[in-house]
């Protein structure tokens, strides 16, 4: 039997309710405006250092903006050759043959999308489970420890994930997991062919481990932003704990959770070293997840420093430009979603 629907009022998204986070976020007038009068009454002598300080600080803030513009400009400038030569065909060409001078990015775009999608498929349920456990189920004593451990995953350098992937995960997949998947799910066509261990599946798993802390910490943050009385109200209607979490918490936090997932996607799309080390680096589009693939980031990592010829280099920079634009859009979207829930307080580590 279904539980009674909570009254209209409870279903309002969390944005409608001024949570603590939002209240503290509201722009209090900076000290400068409150104290305008005092400052203008300062002796003239102290105004010059103040102005100098303000300019220095403004310059360092502008530098952040300048860096992003500079990065974008360099990418556009250096990929101009390839942009002119191939135009839009670059993004639907299948051939990547530097010797012949033909460059098509499809195998890399495919590899990036498939590995990231696979990562999200594994990481999203796990991250939401972790976040739910930490915020709603965990004994108080364990809470700090588990969140610390999950965040520790984000502190491990990507090259160490790659090292572990090559020497621990890949043999494990080759010997046990892939034969099992081939036996049970081989009919889908996704799990066929020779089993190397290294390949799309390994890349997806490594990426999943790496994006879990990103998604879990944002999910936890938006779940914490849901006011306590939402939970109490749903419980008071006789809901079980899971119903309370589903209706009182997850429903209110869903926009922020989606934001966290998109942020995780951004991280997965641009991840380089770990993927390069385990994906097998073969520019082919294969249906089987056992097959080696290649991603946009790893082709740059592998071929950039030995690219001969301007066109080759330019094609690689163009892949970088595409990666830059995609992560830019993905991140912008995610921030907007997360901000709409937490009002901008969430410190986002991606």
């Amino acid at each position, binding site marked *: 039997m279904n539980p009674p629907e909570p009254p209209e009022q409870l279903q309002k998204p969390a944005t409608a309710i001024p949570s603590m986070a939002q209240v503290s976020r509201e722009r209090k007038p900076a000290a400068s405006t409150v104290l305008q009068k005092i400052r203008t009454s300062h002796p003239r002598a102290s105004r010059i250092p103040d102005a100098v300080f303000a300019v*220095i600080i403004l310059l360092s803030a502008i530098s952040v903006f300048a860096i992003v513009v500079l990065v974008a400009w360099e990418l556009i400038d250096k990929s101009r050759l390839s942009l002119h030569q191939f135009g839009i065909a670059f993004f639907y060409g299948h051939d990547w043959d530097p010797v012949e001078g033909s460059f098509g990015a499809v195998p890399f775009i495919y590899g990036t999308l498939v590995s990231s999608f696979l990562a999200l498929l594994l990481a999203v349920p796990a991250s939401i489970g972790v976040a739910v456990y930490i915020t709603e189920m965990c004994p108080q004593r364990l809470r700090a420890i588990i969140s610390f451990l*999950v965040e520790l*995953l984000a502190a491990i350098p990507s090259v160490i994930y790659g090292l572990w992937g090559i020497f621990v995960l890949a043999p494990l997949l080759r010997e046990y997991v892939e034969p099992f998947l081939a036996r049970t799910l081989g009919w889908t066509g996704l799990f066929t062919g020779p089993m190397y261990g290294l390949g799309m599946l390994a890349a997806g798993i490594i990426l999943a481990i790496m994006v879990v802390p990103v998604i879990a910490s944002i999910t936890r943050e938006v779940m914490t932003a849901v006011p306590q009385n939402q939970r109490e109200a749903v419980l008071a209607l006789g809901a079980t704990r899971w119903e309370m979490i589903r209706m009182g918490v997850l429903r209110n936090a869903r926009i922020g959770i989606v934001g966290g997932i998109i942020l995780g996607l951004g991280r997965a799309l641009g991840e380089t070293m770990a993927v390069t080390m385990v994906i097998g680096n073969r520019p082919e589009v294969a249906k089987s997840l056992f097959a080696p693939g290649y991603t946009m980031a790893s082709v740059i990592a592998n071929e950039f420093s030995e690219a001969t010829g301007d066109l080759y280099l330019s094609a690689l*920079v163009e892949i970088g430009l595409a990666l830059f634009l995609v*992560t830019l859009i993905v991140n912008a979207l995610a921030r907007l979603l997360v901000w709409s829930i937490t009002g901008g307080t969430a410190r986002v580590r991606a």
Partner: protein
Amino acid sequence: MPDSVSASAPQEVSLWRRVTNQGATTFAVLAVIFVLVPLLAIFVYLVIKGIGSVNLAFLTQTPKPPGEVGGGMANAIVGTGLILAIASVIGLPLGIGSGIYLAEYGRNRFGDLIRFTADVLNGVPSIVIGIAVYSLIVVRQKHFSAFSGGVALGIMMVPTIARATEEMLLMVPNVVREAAYGLGIPKWRTTLSISLRTASAGVITGCMLAFARVAGETAPLLFTAFGNQFWNLKLNQPTAALSLQVFTYAISPYDDWHKQAWAGALILIVLIVAAVAAVRITTSRGMMKGA
């Protein structure tokens, strides 16, 4: 339905609801286990596989040519230190400066723009930063260098530090600033000696997080610092870095190099953890506590 709710007898919770409730709890616990197992496995393997190859030679010698047994990563350890020092010189002032701007001056449209740009920069893949620094510096200098590697990592530190600094400064109550102004202390002095000082513990933690994040970065160093099999302390020459060395050795076909890769990875993670812990311990004592 409404009738049964208003009935005074305690209502049986249906089997389905009990099962889903149990199922959800089990699922959450399993998720935690699934996430923590790889973490544990990574650390266990790092220690088991790495510790055997960490010895005096590893810490004091440069790499041997491929195939020869022995040698070490001393130059890479020093190189990483050098690159991180350059990165900090660039990243810390810019990051803290923009953080101060966001908190003390940037409560307006332009501040929002900078805040947003910082978050976007935080999400730009490190390999893309590597390409940009390559074409900005390496192409112009005409060779790979420790300096360009430092710039790439420094750029990556800025957004993290800026946002952490902003957040910590916003937590400093306005009355503290007002008290300072009341004593006739100018704004720049108030910001640096009062607000930033009060928030220092949090700011330092933010800086450490940024530092730890870039310390293990490999992708942006591939075509900036490039790596080097020999000693180099010159800023304008290719330089070895621990993370680069681990990468090169891990994908090599030599067994001895694989062992060294594990040892290098272990040293890398120990150095990162030690740096973070050292700062945590020093800042958790004395007057810097709080904020």
